[in-house]
């Protein structure tokens, strides 16, 4: 669960340079006041601006946002896989290792980070070919991954690879070890990428839009698979998506991002039932939901063609963010105070935070 109160006090202490707060041993990942910038002054893009959240043991946290929200950049910051020109300009990213000690990922060298990636934190992407080597058989790739982090020989590693393919429900796994990625369908490649990511039993899996490029019936399969593996292996998952439907399928906790900032965070059901930020509410109204909009009326008459309620305007560019609330230009609740200064992320309920100064009017 996200304890927003803890998160904020930790953020304050980090900023003050004081030692980090005593952490709940349940916390696997603590991101505090993260700032990730691209480019040089005067044209600095604040891709991630003051992002704070927690991931606890065995839970799935979904980070949901549209293009330019900073959701992917935040996850790449955690992995230290930022593209050229990107840098962590502030805040901290702490991760609890298998040994139980909390380490600051943002302070690690690339060499130290390589020991963490794959072994303790793994990542899967929208496009499996970004992580699969087209010139190696899938068996060899999984075996190589295991041998890199664990002291085992090739025969054992290949046997382990076969077990991993079975784990991700690839039929006749033993016969597929010699296949190359191009011989597999999109859904099968995604399964192989998951097998590769989970080969060393990471404590945290970062899944960046893993089902976005898939057909809807295959997406359903992969979501079910990830849900099962997350529960069975007791790992934590940070699930990056633009799709609120997917959030409802898989998340325990939700972080909503807009233009680089967290605008709302809450337990999943709470977020859908009682959204406390106008952007979350707007996104819910704009998302197709036939069960809500198109179900036949009580009289049995089919509903007339209903309309979605769009959010007016466009997603702002991260180099031209407004001074105050970044959603204000598109917000139906906008008042002058919204544009005066950046609103803080405030607790609206014990587990629920909103970055809206008018959140009370939404309750």
């Amino acid at each position: 669960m996200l304890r927003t109160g803890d998160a904020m006090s930790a953020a304050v202490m980090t900023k003050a340079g004081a030692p980090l707060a005593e952490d709940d041993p349940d916390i696997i990942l603590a991101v505090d006041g993260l700032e990730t910038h691209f480019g040089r002054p005067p044209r600095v893009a604040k891709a991630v601006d003051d992002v704070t959240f927690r991931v606890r043991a065995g839970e799935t946290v979904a980070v949901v946002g549209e293009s330019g929200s900073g959701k992917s950049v935040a996850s790449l910051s955690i992995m230290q896989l930022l593209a050229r020109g990107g840098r962590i300009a502030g805040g901290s990213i702490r991760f609890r290792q298998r040994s139980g000690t909390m380490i600051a990922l943002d302070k690690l060298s690339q060499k130290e980070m390589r020991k963490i990636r794959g072994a303790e934190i793994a990542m899967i992407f929208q496009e499996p070919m970004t992580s699969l080597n087209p010139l190696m058989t899938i068996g060899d790739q999984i075996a190589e991954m295991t041998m890199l982090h664990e002291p085992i020989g090739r025969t054992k590693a290949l046997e382990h690879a076969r077990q991993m393919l079975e784990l991700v429900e690839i039929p006749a796994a033993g016969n597929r070890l010699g296949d190359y990625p191009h011989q597999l369908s999109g859904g099968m490649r995604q399964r192989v990428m998951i097998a590769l990511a989970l080969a060393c039993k990471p404590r945290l899996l970062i899944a960046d839009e893993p089902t976005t490029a898939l057909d809807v019936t295959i997406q359903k399969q992969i979501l079910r698979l990830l849900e099962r593996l997350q529960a069975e292996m007791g790992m934590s998952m940070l699930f990056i998506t633009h799709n609120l439907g997917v959030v409802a399928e898989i998340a325990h906790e939700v972080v909503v991002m807009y233009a680089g900032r967290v605008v709302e965070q809450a337990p999943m059901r709470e977020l859908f039932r009682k959204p406390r930020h106008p952007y979350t509410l707007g996104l819910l109204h704009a998302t197709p939901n036939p069960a809500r909009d198109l179900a036949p009326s009580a009289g049995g008459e089919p509903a007339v063609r209903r309309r979605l309620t769009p959010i007016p305007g466009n997603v702002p560019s991260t180099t031209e963010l407004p001074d105050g609330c970044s959603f204000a230009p598109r917000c139906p609740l906008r008042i002058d105070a919204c544009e005066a200064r950046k609103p803080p992320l405030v607790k609206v309920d014990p587990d629920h935070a909103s970055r809206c100064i008018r959140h009370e009017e939404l309750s």
Partner: protein
Amino acid sequence: MSDASPLLVVENLSKRFPSTRGVVRAVDGVSFEVRRGTVTGLVGESGSGKTTIGRSVLRLVEPSSGKAVFDGVDLFTLPPKEMRRYRRRLQIIFQDPYSSLDPRMRVGAIIGEALDTHGLAKGAARQARIAELLTKVGLQPEHARRYPHEFSGGQRQRIGIARALAVEPEFIVADEPVSALDVSVQAQILNLIQDLQAELGLTMLIVAHDLTVVEYLCDDVIVLYLGRIMEQGPARAIYARPRHPYTKALLSAAPVPDPDAERSELVLEGDIPSPLSPPSGCVFRTRCPYAKPVCAEGDPVPVPVTGVERQLSACVRRAELEAEGVL
């Protein structure tokens, strides 16, 4: 509107692509009608043939066989010169607003080009028409002087729509018109298409992979799988009660943004087969949880569902599955 006469009648449309590993049957004997002033959705996953059908109708892809009778004339038999004349009446909106606009041309020139091709307006009238079109799609006349890269994805899609409308078409194919857009903007474009369709009385064919999006826009829906029609009919009837296991699976696979919504446990196993070697009989049978040996036989075609006007299903076990309470 249910008695509207068809503007487009597609009969037995097939498209085969030769490949090094054999012949891909992208579209295999598809027949349907699009009634005047209505919107029909072509829905399916990868390999369903939906895009190929949409483009064949405009002859952007040359069909292998079949007919596409538009207002009484079979478009497939027209010589190229004649077909060009028809292009004024049939337009297309593309999926990707980033690659479908020439980056070197100003927006005014992009829209003006369509007017020039068909000799529709010159000089001041041309400028006025461009301004009018931009306003109609929710942009401003001044935007005519800008280049495509100065616009967001949603705005570019508006430009694409303005270009399609420039020649006052009767019929528009929209190929995944909102799937490249952010959710908050997607709803804007869906509503714009709805408004323009109603205002101008357009007849539309919408190609989409997302059945939930189509539900908002369409009067009729055609559900495709591996180049064949599984089910077709009024969108409301199909949504309320799908009469084919594939439609039911497609509806239940779409993630619902509501954790309290009823969740169907119907999860299809396996992959979509290769269109190089589609299964015999019903092409869906290899993934259908209700398949029986009978499904491997014959060549099932959509047949009317009794009691529902214009709804057709290609499931050979439909009556049994209805009796069992599955459909």
